[in-house]
């Protein structure tokens, strides 16, 4: 395991206040509310950074715009921005994102996770690994990693 923090003192950004949806009084009981950008962002915004007490949102690792979703095609792509160029935690963050979405989205969904272009030294490598489901599957049988991920996904009641 890496010794010391990769990025000791990251810039912390203010959280965007929760956008509460205007809920019309009498909605059609049978109308379908599609899964949209905000809903997915809400799933992942509070994931904690593996080495800081801050959420990925606070660190601007992810933003709402970083979520692209097409509910009809059951497709999501999340683009995240590691705090520093050589962040070796990038794969772990990506893994957290994938796991959280796996647990939060209907099985029909196809999920792509990628590092924002030009924000990471080994961008291609990270992306390839994050989208190799066999390696993800193996990772999720590795207790150390699972602990780490669950740590990051643990809800923070604030």
């Amino acid at each position, binding site marked *: 395991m890496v010794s010391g923090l990769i990025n000791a003192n990251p810039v912390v950004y203010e959280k965007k206040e929760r956008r509460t949806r205007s809920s019309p009084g009498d909605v059609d009981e049978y109308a379908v509310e599609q899964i949209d950008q905000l809903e997915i962002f809400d799933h992942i915004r509070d994931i904690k950074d593996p080495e800081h007490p801050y959420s990925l949102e606070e660190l601007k690792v992810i933003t709402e715009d970083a979520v692209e979703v097409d509910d009809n095609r059951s497709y999501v792509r999340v683009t995240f921005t590691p705090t520093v160029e050589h962040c070796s935690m990038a*794969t772990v963050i990506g893994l957290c994102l994938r796991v959280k979405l796996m647990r939060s989205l209907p099985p029909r969904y196809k999920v792509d996770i990628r590092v924002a272009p030009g924000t990471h030294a080994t961008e291609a490598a990270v992306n390839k690994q994050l989208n190799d489901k066999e*390696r*993800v599957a193996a990772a999720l049988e590795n207790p*150390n990693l699972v602990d*780490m991920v669950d740590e990051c996904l643990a809800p923070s009641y604030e």
Partner: protein
Amino acid sequence: MDCIEDIFESSLKLEETHFKDGYDEGHADGLISGKEEGRQVGLKTGFEIGEELGFYRGCVDVWNSAARVDPNFISVRIQKTIKQMDELLHSYPILEPEKESGSDMIDALRLKFRAICASLNMKLEYNGYPKTSDVEF
């Protein structure tokens, strides 16, 4: 019938004991010789390589002694591999660390070592290998 079995059994035991003693011994002096050679190379890496070589040397000695006790214990193929390791160990350019052939030979040794262990179903491990971080996948 019985007695044959007995003999067989005892010989088995014998093997085991020999093997064990020999192994410890070999392992020990393997480490020692490794350390010595390592010091000769001097550099830290040199020491590591030396240690690893020493380790293999120790193992090879043990296997050889075991093979001497009971040829059937180790299959021909494996014995061949052991011999190859032996040769590699001898021909390793200890005193010329610059020589690239060194690293290739180390790799070769590692592979053969693993092959042998696997075949003998032994849980031997050289604990000097660069450990892979436990959060990689």
